């Protein structure tokens, strides 16, 4: 079975593949012996199906820190936070 990350990198950097239809991409993935999760994600148009292959981890995205006067309040508490478990 082909490595999913390698295949994603190939698709992402290939002008034809990056904008190929689901059908065209499906054929290419079939030939490349892609994982079932990757083929299902492409066929269904639901990339969440690929997450199963990687443990269904959901990353947080916000980097917003908009809150009036909040930054100054937090300054005093710096360094009190225990490290999270990894």
């Amino acid at each position: 079975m082909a490595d999913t990350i390698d295949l994603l990198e190939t698709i992402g950097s290939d002008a034809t593949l990056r904008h190929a239809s689901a059908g065209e991409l499906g054929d290419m993935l079939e030939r490349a012996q892609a994982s079932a999760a990757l083929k299902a994600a492409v066929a269904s148009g639901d990339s969440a199906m690929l997450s199963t292959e990687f443990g269904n981890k959901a990353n947080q995205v916000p980097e917003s820190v908009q809150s009036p006067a909040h930054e100054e309040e937090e300054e005093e508490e710096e360094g009190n936070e225990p490290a999270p478990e990894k």
Partner: protein
Amino acid sequence: MTMPISTPPNEARRGSLACVGLGMTLGSHLTPLARSHIEQADVVFAGLSDAIVEVWLGRMHPDVRSLQPYYAEGKSRLKTYRQWVGLMMAEVRAGKRVCGVFYGHPGIFAWSPHKAIEAARAEGFQAHMEPGISAEDCLYADLGIDPGRYGCQHFEASQLLFYRRRIENTGYLVLWQVGLVGDRSLGRFRTGPAYRQVLVDLLAEDYPLDHEVLIYRGATLPIQPPRIRRIALRDLPQVALTAEETVVLPPAEPMRLNQAILDRLDALDRLEAHAKM
């Protein structure tokens, strides 16, 4: 074709920091220089929006440390970001070449890279930011918007609520992180329809409620198309919205000529014409 060039010896082994952008889409946007920063670092910290993209980054360096575990529901994000700065700076102070890798552009809607670079420079370390293709860049391409055509304002949505800002409705208005608009605790990852209704009420001062609004999300995986939804402004509180989705309001009114300024420019043109005669 690139030629192999031997890197100069790192005599002092002083710590350094590079914050680089990975771009938005896996495999499509990473610049050669950003990749080089990653590969040449001693330790890499990852602040990425997609867990699969994080796996991809892990292929580029043996010591990639995710910053994701420091997020927690109910915990102020500011505290999280201060921890990120502390983690990166600890390695810089230990003499390591540190690379902070962030999705998109490391300096756009990203508090910690700016602060870490500031802290490193204040302590005499070399620190550098390397731009990446941002969500904003993708938005222009995917929605076919040229910010130079009518002008374009960008606001973090909560800022628009917390502070008195001037909205210019003859240009585009781009609102970021609408999914958590109005969160003053910094500890929530989304807020509900009632908070978005406050935003809609504010926007209704400058836009009709039936004004078309675009909800946009760029692709993070190369098997995804961008997601673009079109709704009426009045429906914004009711639609499902995630933190990574961006709300775009196209112009509501035509640009109006500033006749007073145009008259002044006419007068200047006439003066210059006389001077040349």
